[in-house]
């Protein structure tokens, strides 16, 4: 798969920019704050309909503009596809493919596949569990866009259930505190049965998401070990383990959806007093953890800075391997690799090894503030990025 063209209007710092790209390596160089990451972010947005830097869309629209447009030409197996997105903050975004409007922008997912390496990736290892859950879920959706729907259904059930826990919990606490009354009695009788209904829906959606994550972790495990070995030059043994909030640490998880549903239901029942007390949902994929370890020690809290970077790179490389393997069956070509400013973070050995690993990819976009940070192996087209414009220099 190749990204042949990128055109932005009122996206981030760009009033308008057009960029033609070739296969192989492209290196974008420019001083800090000139708009390199903004370009990468736009490409990532087309692939995932989200930013890797911000949770809302407002910052993606150029200050003073009312909407942004991102256009890309994606070349899949020699066939060009024009993907256009219009971002309207607080409104509804629109998407077109080959000029035909899509009923829902979500249908864009899966058309462009990318793997992004960014300075923020260190948080995959050192950050909160939420970072690792996001890594898994983004990869799930890249592999099977249908799972975006599963994910958003789960989030919606979770919001409804949590809202109910909050109100039921505060009424129950109020009743204990001596505020007698019709409403608190009503909540005891009326809201607990509805909580059962939300439990059932949460367990069903949660089991589907959980099953998909478990399968993904299985597929990633050998790839991560292999990639860590390659990046760190055989310096350790990287492991992945999925820990469900619904099971004790050593307890094996059921292999089928029905078993997982039951597991979640049982865990919710056990957690109910605590959930009512605190007014939050304590069980489910939103509370799970992907445990990364080096040898016998957890990476989080133990790994050195360099080891943490190797692990983060290994996760991204494994994602790339997995998507490439999927693509060889669907014949769409390997994903586009985006390396935003990562070489500056690495020591010479890791730089060279990473460069060697990614150089053969079908298309690689590299950004750097200083050209000298980009290893020799990554030779290709050069672009200069300065003050909202991009110019090819070699």
């Amino acid at each position, binding site marked *: 798969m190749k990204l042949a063209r990128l055109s932005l209007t009122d996206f981030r710092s760009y009033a308008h920019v057009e960029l033609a790209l070739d296969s192989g390596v492209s290196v974008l160089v420019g001083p800090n704050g000139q708009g390199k990451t903004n370009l990468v972010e736009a490409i990532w947005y087309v692939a995932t309909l989200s930013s890797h830097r911000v949770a809302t869309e407002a910052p993606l629209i150029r200050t003073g503009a009312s909407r942004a447009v991102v256009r890309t030409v994606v070349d899949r197996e020699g066939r060009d596809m024009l993907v256009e997105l219009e971002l309207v903050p607080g409104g509804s975004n629109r998407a077109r493919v080959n000029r035909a409007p899509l009923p829902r922008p979500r249908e864009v997912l899966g058309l462009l596949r990318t793997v992004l390496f960014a300075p923020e990736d260190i948080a995959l290892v050192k950050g909160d569990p939420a970072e690792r859950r996001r890594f898994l879920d983004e990869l799930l959706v890249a592999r099977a866009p249908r799972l975006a729907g599963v994910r958003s259904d789960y989030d919606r059930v979770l919001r*409804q259930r949590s*809202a*109910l826990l909050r109100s039921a919990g505060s009424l129950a606490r109020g009743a204990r505190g001596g505020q007698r009354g019709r409403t608190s009695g009503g909540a005891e009788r009326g809201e607990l049965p509805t909580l059962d*209904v939300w439990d059932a829906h949460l367990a069903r959606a949660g089991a589907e998401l959980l099953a998909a994550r478990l399968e993904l972790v299985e597929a990633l495990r050998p790839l991560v070990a292999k990639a860590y070995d390659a990046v760190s030059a055989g310096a350790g043994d990287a492991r992945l383990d999925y820990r469900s909030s619904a099971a004790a640490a050593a307890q094996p998880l059921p292999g089928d959806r029905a078993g997982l549903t039951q597991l979640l239901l049982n865990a919710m029942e056990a957690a109910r007093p605590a959930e009512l007390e605190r007014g939050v949902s304590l069980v489910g994929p939103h509370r799970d953890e992907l445990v990364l370890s080096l040898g016998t020690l957890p990476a989080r809290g133990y790994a050195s800075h360099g080891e943490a970077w190797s692990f983060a790179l290994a996760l991204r490389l494994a994602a790339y391997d997995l998507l490439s393997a999927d693509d060889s069956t669907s014949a769409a070509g390997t994903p586009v690799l985006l390396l935003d400013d990562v070489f500056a973070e690495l020591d010479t050995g890791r730089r060279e090894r990473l460069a060697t690993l990614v150089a053969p990819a079908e298309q690689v976009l590299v950004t750097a503030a200083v050209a000298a940070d980009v290893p020799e192996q990554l030779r290709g087209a050069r672009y200069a990025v300065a003050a909202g414009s991009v110019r090819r220099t070699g």
Partner: protein
Amino acid sequence: MYEGVVQDLIDELGRLPGVGPKGAQRIAFYLLAADPTDVRRLADVLVLVKDKVRFCATCGNVAEEEHCRICRDPRRDPAVLCVVEEPKDVVAIERTREYRGRYHVLGGAISPIDGIGPDDLRVRELMTRLADGAVRELILATDPNLEGEATATYLARLVKPMGLRVTRLASGLPVGGDLEYADEVTLGRAFEGRRLLDA
């Protein structure tokens, strides 16, 4: 801000569902420029609808008398009861001409985020209607979205001890949407292919 009554009008219009501040302004200025007899007619209908139309004492549908047209029609089958969220869903289902039973309008769906629980819907009225055992099939035709599904699950569990046949419209309806947006053919088919719901 506009002067006095114009601003009042914009504020009132802005309170209507689906009308934002900009839309409210547009409608207000449209009305200011419109023919006085047209505006008078609109105002009359607004007053009339509040005076004359009420909710059916039995099913909760809109009615011009104590009971709605469907509840008063002796040809409608009293053994089949279809539960919907809103009166507009009754209109959508009637359009299909597939259904000859009666209705029960809940007035919404369970949604804790919006503070809506079973007590805020016409659930107690439904249980009262079912108490005499005349209804043999209960069709749960709440919207095909999360809140509609949850409401259907809740009702199915609630009526389970009564031992009646509980069905749900067949899939094929646009998921995540409102019942009223389904076309007649799709909705008619969903009725034909309704399936037993086990709670």
